[in-house]
């Protein structure tokens, strides 16, 4: 095998794995390949997938974001409360503050951006590890969500729920949002100065700085992007379920998002990330989740397999990088 062929194989191995899994699941269970099941699979993975696009940017710059799920719960709770019917007895917000869905959603995204801005500024200017900063943010945001409302927020308006559970020409809105965000993430990484700068920062932060890249500003933007993805995830989550429970919604979603980005080849040593890879990572984990449930495999076995795949993918990735240097 020539060097070029080898490279092509190692670049595309993830898609081969995905195809292999799909073929296996299709053979193992006749219901797997049905349109209805595909829709279930994709709608089930879309929210974690959107968060994976978020955290991939952080991982690309040698960071991480552990606050995604908690930010989603907080934003889902606040935006949900703002669109509850004004006369609802169990309303989370007293005083009858009621916003149209669009305004509430926009506000939710802004709240996400503000949280991300704070996290990013702390990481950029104090240089504490992103792991610590976002772990702290996770605790704070989860607690804030519970303080905001100690019971599930339900009876959300239909217009608010449109993005989470609506359909356009039989395609779930949630999948459309996922595709739009995937495109946006790809566009940013490949076609903007910001994206190019992230690869440089992840590859060699000192060199990036010497080349005139404002590392701090870019790091803040990375975490704004992360938290905005979490906010969108939270809004979709609340919309999909029709309610938002501050103590459980989005719980551990950041871990699934990190797993998907990692399996998708985003390197934790920085400087390597492709959106197509992340999409493949999301789908691989989704197919395993969905397919094994259809086959009636025990939940614990599924998790063992997922764990092995996450570790294995990083081992492979590291070996690839060692060979390069």
């Amino acid at each position, binding site marked *: 095998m020539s060097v070029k062929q080898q490279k092509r194989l190692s670049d595309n191995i993830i898609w081969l794995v995905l195809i292999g899994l799909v073929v296996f699941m299709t053979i193992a269970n006749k219901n797997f390949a049905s349109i209805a099941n595909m829709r279930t699979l994709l709608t089930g993975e879309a929210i974690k997938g959107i968060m994976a696009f978020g955290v991939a940017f952080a991982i690309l710059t040698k960071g991480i974001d552990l606050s995604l799920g908690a930010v989603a719960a907080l934003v889902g709770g606040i935006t949900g409360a703002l669109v509850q019917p004004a006369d609802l007895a169990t309303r989370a917000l007293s005083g009858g503050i009621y916003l149209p869905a669009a305004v509430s959603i926009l506000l939710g995204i802004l709240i996400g951006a503000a949280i991300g801005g704070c996290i990013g500024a702390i990481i950029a200017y104090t240089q504490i590890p992103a792991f610590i900063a976002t772990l702290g943010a996770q605790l704070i945001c989860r607690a804030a969500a519970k303080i905001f409302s100690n019971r599930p927020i339900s009876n959300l308006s239909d217009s608010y729920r449109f993005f989470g559970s609506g359909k356009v020409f039989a395609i779930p809105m949630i999948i459309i949002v996922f595709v739009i965000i995937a495109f946006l993430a790809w566009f940013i990484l490949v076609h903007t100065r910001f994206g190019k700068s992230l690869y440089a920062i992840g590859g*060699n932060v000192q060199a990036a700085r010497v080349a005139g890249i404002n590392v701090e500003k870019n790091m803040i933007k990375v975490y704004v992007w992360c938290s905005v993805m979490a906010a969108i995830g939270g809004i979709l989550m609340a919309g999909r379920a029709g309610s938002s429970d501050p103590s459980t919604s989005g719980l551990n979603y950041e871990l699934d998002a990190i797993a998907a980005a990692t399996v998708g080849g985003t390197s934790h040593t920085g400087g390597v990330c492709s959106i197509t890879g992340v999409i493949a990572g999301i789908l691989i984990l989704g197919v395993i989740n969905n397919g094994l449930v259809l086959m009636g495999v025990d939940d614990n076995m599924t998790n063992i397999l997922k764990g092995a795949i996450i570790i294995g993918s990083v081992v492979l990735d590291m070996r690839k990088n060692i060979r390069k*240097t």
Partner: protein
Amino acid sequence: MSEEFILEMQDIVKEFPGVKALKGVQLKVRPGTVHTLMGENGAGKSTLVKCLIGMQHVTSGTVIYKGKKVNFKTTQEALDAGISMIHQELSPVLERSVSDNVWLGREPKKGLIVDRKKMRQDCLELFQKIGMSLDPDEKMKNLTVAKMQMVEIVKAISYHSSIVIMDEPTSALTGTEVEDLFQIVADLKSRGVAIIYISHKMEEIFRISDDISIFRDGEYIITDRAENLTQNKVIELMVGREITDMFPKKECSIGEVVLKVENLCSGKAVKNVSFDLRKGEILGFAGLVGAGRTETMETIFGIRSKTDGKIYKDGIEISIRSPEDAIKNHIGMLTEDRRGNGIIGILSVKMNSVLANLKNYGFPVNAKKMDADTKLYIERLGIKTPAMASLIQNLSGGNQQKVLLARWLLTDPDILIVDEPTRGIDVGAKTEIHNIISELAAMGKAIIVISSELPEVMGIADRVVVMRESKITGIIKRSEMTQEIIMKYATLDTETQAEA
């Protein structure tokens, strides 16, 4: 004969891939003396002592220590045999106490438990021996660099060393601390310990040395008693080599001042540096490693923060707080540490080329223009790469350096600073880089070249600024340049110069 020497190193050859660092050198050390190794950067002094203590291994040659042939595999073996080294870069365990550091890895034990009392007691005894007052329980991080060095010396004594190697021990010390160190050196000498001393500072070498060995480009030149040598003689022997015609200097007209630096300071690293730079001029910066040349340029370029002084470009004062600001002011800097803050190994030649110029590709980035720019410079600078998408880490050092040059040229700088542009690059690529620098000057760019290779600086510079201990000690015109003069400014104290 062999009775007279405690250490005899003969025909030592050390090869690194592609480089012969030591080409059959010798070193003979008498017990109870200070034997100084001298030579320019890269002459092979450090390599020689590293081979002695087992940090590196000789390719061929014999080492006779105390009358026996030895070949230490590890520094621990050398230590146990009585040879210890105090490194230029100290590496103490900062969070632990002084006595913990002295006995690190060989703590005395009572049964299974470390005998702290004995550690402390033995430490105090050792301190007393060399007339030093220090609390063994003090945390290492609270000590000054000088005190840390003393602890290292105590550690060396605790091994009952017969040879103590000191690599630039005074580089971080103040005047009185140096005196203390010399006191200890004298004390060690009187107890029969041989000191192998590496330093660039002439005045201190002539104060404490008994013997001096001189090396040049990995070759042994001479060993003589210090009293038979003079400072000028030593400098001559250190640099005495012919300048080859590697440095094609293009004649070009020198224009008005583009950069003026006034009393630039950055903490202790840069002290009151003032100079100016003209259009079309190549200004060399010479000096020993650690003289503050890189730090000066880092301050101008915004990598290091300026604590005082002013920088003018085209007669207007400019404020530079980051490389971003410097680039906005059309200043570029090819840094010394190519791997550390130059290349981004896992990115392509193309991304590495356009990195400093990202602002000029619009939104969304104009990929075609990036390709065109990269292609242009691959051709113009003769960069050998399979493709512009190839990872830069797979290129040779010389080609990586050219990509970095392309990076800065794409920003269209008025002023280009290049720091050790040819370090670790093979001879052919060196000449190419010298050619590029010369051509840039001919095009009217103002260029600053830092280099530790004197022939390089002298070959391409119109003027040479010499630095020593964070200060400028001399600015020399091309017509007056000789290696001896530059080395004098680089190594001698200003007072000594006045006498000379």
